[in-house]
């Protein structure tokens, strides 16, 4: 995932440096530029900065949905793990639909999901949980880094429950992996 993100960032900086939006995601830089290039420049577009953020978020939601699909299809998950994965994927689909709604509403063009994602080699349920946790962690940090940049209150209102979901997902996976859940983020 990291390689894919860094590759995106490199390509984005080449193609659209001036439009590049970088999300600080827990020490990682998630490049939004490649995704934000889908942003139209039509005059009726409102809240262009918000739309760029929403499209980055939408890219992350597409990726998460695909990751949970990969996890579910791997047949490596226990019944309980699968239940959690499907529940969280449903949340991400709801986020995706909400983001698309707002991007359309303000005159933007939502990015599509990629044809394929490279999630690395998955050989165990732990691999899947680790993948999911890293994606949820990145999403949590992306929403946290960008919430205060949003200008439109309607969009901010829509983003808040999404942030709540990402934190909940991330915390559940951290617990499953035995990671520290008592450490506060630095802010």
């Amino acid at each position: 995932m990291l390689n894919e993100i860094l590759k995106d960032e490199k390509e984005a900086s080449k193609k659209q440096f001036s439009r590049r939006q970088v999300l600080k995601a827990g020490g990682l830089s998630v490049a939004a530029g490649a995704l934000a290039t889908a942003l139209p420049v039509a005059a009726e577009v409102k809240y262009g900065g918000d739309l760029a953020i929403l499209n980055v978020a939408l890219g992350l939601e597409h990726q998460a949905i695909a990751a949970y699909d990969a996890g579910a299809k791997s047949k490596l998950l226990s019944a309980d793990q699968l239940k959690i994965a499907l529940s969280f994927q449903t949340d991400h689909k709801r986020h995706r639909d909400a983001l698309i709604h707002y991007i359309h509403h303000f005159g933007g063009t939502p990015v599509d999901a990629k044809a394929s994602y490279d999630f690395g080699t998955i050989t165990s349920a732990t691999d899947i949980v680790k993948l999911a946790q890293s994606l949820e962690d990145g999403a949590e940090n992306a929403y946290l880094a960008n919430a205060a940049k949003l200008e439109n209150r309607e969009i901010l209102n829509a983003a808040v429950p999404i942030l709540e979901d990402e934190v909940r997902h991330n915390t559940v996976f951290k617990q499953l992996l035995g990671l520290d859940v008592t450490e506060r983020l630095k802010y």
Partner: protein
Amino acid sequence: MKTETSLKEQKDWLDMPKNDDASHGTARREWMRLAGTASAGALLYLVTGNPKPLYAQSKEGDLGILTAALYLENEAVTAYQAGAESKLLSAGVLKVAVAFQSDHKYHRDGISGVLKSLGVTPSGPEKKYDFGHLRSENDVLRLARDREHGAVQAYATLASNILTRPVLNFGANVLADEVRHLTILNSVLGVPNY
């Protein structure tokens, strides 16, 4: 996606008698009363429909929300203190409770700092809180869980009324802490997180 089982588990849990219904309700009402003082900015936004000029507008608009948030944080710090002093917690749970209390102190101090910068003297905790009778570790966990749940709802409800960006950024991080606390406490209490 909630299965029938998880919904039933949740319902069973919610139907269980709580030891602090009365005080929890009071806290929520107090929060809403305090937060109501911030509604002028929100109303202005609703009337004008243009949030942009308001976003950088007077910091005073955030006073009500900050005051209400401080009330919740003071209460949470005191609730965890009551839990820690009850001697009902096992070593592992006590460690988590102390960590969460430390987060709430961090929130309290951050909010107090903003209030001071606005020329307002931040309030301390109430002289007395009614947390009901704490007779078991579960009682303490449920007290904490209910506080965190209330805090999540309060921060989530009012986040978009915050007018200044630094305050909003801080509030978003506080909200994330509260959700993390709630998720862990739910997990310990067997309340489904999915």
